[in-house]
């Protein structure tokens, strides 16, 4: 039976259309049909200048964990224009990006629970609550709750809000409460036998297949691929900090959930180290931006492809300059795009509910898939 799942289906997390062929309740074939949320993001970036105008747009690719996207653009543009970033700004970047990663993972955990439980269940609301706490902190820091526009080429736009002690305290409170909150999620979902029955051994993708599909991020790490750009291709302040890359060998929906929850812990570890550093930073060395010219015109025909570790995986940007202050070609490599492609390998032969769960465990953000 041919079944259209989406584009308006409660579990597609946006507008996604899965052309599904069913054999009874089992999935014989599934083909994601994307493009419903295409907003010409690449074209818009090509029409705006490097210095200021592009930065608000990355926030709108992966709109659940926005700051890593900003870093993706900042990294590529700083490479292209040979801009240095002050160390202090690097720490601010690292801290804020890890907050954003928690934000993204909280939503991913919540919506995945939603897909498995159905209706507005407690887990989803608790995850949203914890996400809100992060948003409060980031609002204090950046001035917005989602579309931060916090990064600038050569640094960030704002130092920590005054009074700093209050901010540090707020962050510390959050970090201190986090283990308890995570424990609650474990009580709620991961130790629940029915939940385990639903997720363990479903949506399986082995490491080889995942590599073939170009999977990155939590999806790859849940298949045992030890791959994290923060460590493998270091940028920012990551290689100065003490943290681990989380991997799981389950290859299934459950493993992907576990990877996300453990990554939240790692992010918290990173944040608390950043906070320690920021607290002791000498007051006269708090450079948040380096000196960047008002107009940036990189040499013509310079080409660069750089990637960072977004919340969903490897987020790369290719830029070719043509000597003007706007990119000639701006290409975004979105992790969700590749991860979504692997759905067909995961869902083959599974039941419809597992297809939905696998989709949820991939944590695709259609804004990033379609761009």
């Amino acid at each position, binding site marked *: 039976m041919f079944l259209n799942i989406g584009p308006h289906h409660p579990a597609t997390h946006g507008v996604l*259309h899965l052309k599904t062929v069913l054999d009874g309740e089992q999935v014989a074939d599934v083909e*994601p*049909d*994307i*493009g*419903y*949320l*295409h907003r*010409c993001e*690449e*074209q*818009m970036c*090509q029409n705006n200048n490097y210095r200021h105008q592009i930065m608000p747009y990355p926030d709108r690719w992966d709109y659940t964990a926005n700051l890593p996207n900003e870093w993706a653009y900042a*990294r590529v543009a*700083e*490479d*292209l224009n*040979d*801009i*240095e*970033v002050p*160390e202090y700004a*690097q720490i601010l970047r690292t801290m804020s990006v890890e907050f954003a990663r928690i934000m993204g993972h909280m939503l991913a955990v919540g919506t995945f629970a939603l897909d498995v439980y159905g209706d507005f269940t407690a887990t989803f609301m608790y995850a949203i609550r914890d996400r809100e706490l992060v948003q409060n902190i980031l609002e204090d820091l950046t001035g917005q709750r989602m579309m931060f526009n916090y990064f600038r080429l050569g640094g960030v736009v704002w130092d920590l809000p005054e009074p700093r002690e209050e901010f540090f305290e707020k962050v510390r409170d959050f970090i201190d409460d986090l283990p308890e909150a995570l424990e609650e999620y474990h009580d709620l979902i991961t130790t629940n036998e029915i939940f385990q029955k639903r997720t363990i051994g479903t949506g399986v993708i082995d490491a080889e*297949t995942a*590599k*073939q*599909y*170009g999977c990155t991020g939590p999806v*790859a790490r849940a298949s045992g*691929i030890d*791959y994290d*750009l923060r460590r*493998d*291709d*270091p*940028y*920012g302040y990551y*290689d100065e900090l003490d943290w681990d890359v989380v991997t799981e060998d389950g290859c299934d929906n459950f493993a992907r959930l576990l990877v996300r929850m453990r990554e939240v812990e790692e992010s918290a570890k990173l944040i608390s180290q950043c906070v320690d550093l920021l607290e002791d930073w000498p007051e006269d060395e708090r450079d948040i931006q380096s000196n960047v010219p008002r107009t940036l015109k990189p040499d013509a025909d*310079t*080409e*660069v*492809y*750089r*990637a960072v570790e977004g919340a969903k995986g*490897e987020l*790369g940007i*290719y830029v*070719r300059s043509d000597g003007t202050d706007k990119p*000639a*070609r701006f*290409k975004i*490599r979105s992790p969700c*795009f*590749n991860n979504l*492609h692997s759905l067909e390998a995961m869902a083959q032969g599974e039941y419809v509910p597992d297809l939905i769960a696998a989709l949820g465990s991939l944590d695709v953000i259609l804004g990033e898939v*379609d*761009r």
Partner: protein
Amino acid sequence: MSDAREPDSELEVPETRETVDYDELADLLGDRVIRREDHLNAGGFVIHPGDVQTVLRTLRDEAGFDHLSCLTAQEYEDRYESIYHLSKYADRTQEVNVIVPTDKEDPWNESAAPIYKTAEWHEREASGQATGRRAERTRQSAHGDPAEDGVTGGRGLEHGLGVPV
């Protein structure tokens, strides 16, 4: 590769970034390499559109580039071009770009899908054409009706100019 720059002064340039020996790779690929190019992130090889599978297979199987990170398609005045950004899962800092220029009149190149499964979607995105020969075009041309070609829904495929299809 000499001009690969790191944005962050305080960071050491990772040792591994220098370990890709592009001369060795060039020898490996032999006369399939038309020209060498240097991008900021990595060196690149310009190849013929018909050599895509052979070149990528060689790079994957013999040089270990098992990660097709990205596929960029773009339009120049005189040609279309697609760039395969290859890397390794084991060591992300080793990168190589494979550049495939193609004619404006008959824009196509061999598909990389048999080598990297993920190329299937990337090429579809790049070309807006999925069936038959995987034509690599950066812009929708007259015969490329996306609905007819069975692209991903025929909506919002992107291609060099980013015009909604």
